[in-house]
């Protein structure tokens, strides 16, 4: 069915190179090897991108279905397990704003959390949330906290002197949404309105749910 056995020399007579061809072949072999070796070096690559993808539900999904609208002066930095939204602000970008969602374990969980914040500034604890300024947020009552002094974040971080904090705790059913702003007193003062607007901008947004007939 197939061809019979054959040696390479018989199959490729041209494999027996003539002297002139050997020189040329040597140069070719050298070029190929040089090319291969240069390909081993780490170098720069370049790509041009013009392709755009259609929007899908992925693009309209948010951490814990919590959607925000940040002011232009804030820049979003990497997400962590404890910071669903994480921003930097100010000229030197040392000001920080972040949003966390924690489980609400017990009726006084929000109060415990507020007192933890006061402890970070070595300030006395409060006994009731009613002493705090209140604002409607996420459709419920949000509690606003302010503090100033040396900030002891804990978890191995160095204390931060002369720091001002604005924070909000929003207890909703089984969770507490917290928003915290930390920075120099001047910069935080300048961002006070932006912080409140940001807290008010938060909304629960869940587009992945199957729409009910009455929603359509």
């Amino acid at each position, binding site marked *: 069915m197939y061809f019979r056995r054959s040696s390479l020399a018989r199959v490729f007579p041209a494999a027996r190179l003539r002297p002139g061809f050997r020189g040329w072949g040597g140069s070719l072999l050298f070029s190929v090897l040089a090319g291969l070796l240069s390909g081993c070096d780490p170098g720069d690559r370049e790509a041009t991108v013009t392709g755009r993808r259609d929007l899908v539900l992925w693009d309209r999904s948010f*951490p814990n279905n919590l959607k925000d609208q940040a002011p232009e002066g804030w820049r979003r930095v990497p997400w962590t397990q404890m910071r669903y939204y994480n921003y930097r602000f100010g000229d030197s970008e040392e000001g920080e704003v972040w949003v966390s969602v924690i489980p609400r374990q017990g009726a006084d969980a929000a109060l415990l959390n507020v007192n933890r914040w006061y402890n970070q500034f070595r300030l006395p604890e409060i006994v009731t949330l009613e002493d705090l300024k209140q604002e409607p947020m996420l459709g419920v009552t949000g509690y606003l906290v302010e503090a100033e002094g040396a900030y002891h974040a804990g978890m191995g971080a160095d204390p931060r002197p002369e720091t001002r904090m604005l924070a909000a705790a929003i207890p909703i059913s089984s969770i507490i949404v917290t928003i915290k702003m930390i920075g120099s007193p001047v910069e935080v003062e300048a961002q006070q309105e932006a912080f409140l607007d940001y807290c008010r901008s938060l909304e629960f947004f869940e587009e992945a749910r199957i729409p009910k007939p009455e929603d359509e």
Partner: protein
Amino acid sequence: MSDSRSSKASKQRSIGWWIFRVMAGFELATICLLLLFAATFFGTLEQTQVGLYLTLQKYFDMEALFVIPELNGKIIPLPLPGTFWVCAVLCVNLTLGGLVRIRKGWKTVGVIIAHFSMIFLMVAGAVSQVSKKEGVMHVYQGDRSDYAKSYTEPSIEIYPHDEQGERDKPYVVKSEHFDGLDPDERLTIRLPELPFDLVVSGFRRSSELLQLSRFKEQHKGERVVDGFFLQERPRVQQEEANLTGCYLTVQDKEGNSLQELLLHYNGMPFPTPVTAMVEGKRYEFSLTRWIWPMPFEVELDKTLGEYWPGTQAPSWFQSDITKVEDDLREKYSIVMNKPMRHEGITLYQASWAPPAPGGRPSSGFAIVQNPSDQWPKWSLYIASFGLMLHFGMKLFRFLSSSLPSKKSDA
């Protein structure tokens, strides 16, 4: 006399004839099959140590020209040609030797059919290698989804914002640009439609994002951006568990740096982009797995499952879904080994998760788009038919010649 004539004739044969002879030769087929055996043998052993993804890339990818097997971290001094290209050569060999050169007649028709089926099988593999798309769609009961996400392939997405400040269609830096990109290599991404370009550096297939203030003792001089740094992690066997990370420099068209960013894929079911302002406009940058928009929506109406007693291995699961395409709504029931097929896209039930306390169960659908999806099955049918025909005819001939003829009886 006749010997000298034949040697004269062989001298007169052209180079083309010799090339044809080699390419259609039985020797080449044998070499190819031995190489495939060696690659499969070493690939199977190596896969147990480095995982399926890396092994498939190393041995079977189109870009793998040569492979050096490694076992227990030791190099086996046996360079092998990449399996894709061995199959390509075998395909040519089978076509020339098994279809063109073969003696044609009723006696060989079964063998020709079997050869054709093997060529068809290898073509199916090549088509799959070049054009197969694969991803996963995770949906909670009562939710819907219209996209799949690649298990393993990274991509960077750049969202401009529309006038309302909402995300607009993202620009996508496709996975292929990150193939083999090392941490010390730089990838410049030109964006002609945007007022900036990007430079990717420090790309790591498996990394951990650490906050400097909390992990000072782990910091070994890595670049710090926004108080975070990336640390390389050993690549685990399950490629989907490796979390990709990189540094990104936003630069103007003259190459001046505007913003340093750090991107890290964290496996969350929502994008976690970082932002930069360029010329007064906000842009979001996200490192994720490649997102694949589906031509239809899947609504997960109900999902049920069971585990084998005392294990986390699912014994059975089922998903009742509604496929929504424009105004057309169709109900399907997807169970293990009974996928949903739609215009070249196949949805398999790949995973199932029971509800967390107070939560809902969820289904994971593996989604595959492969034009040659069913070709291997057909090629095996054709091979079976060809071989049955061939051996049937042989048996018939054997039985016919074995039976005593009437004449000899008389």
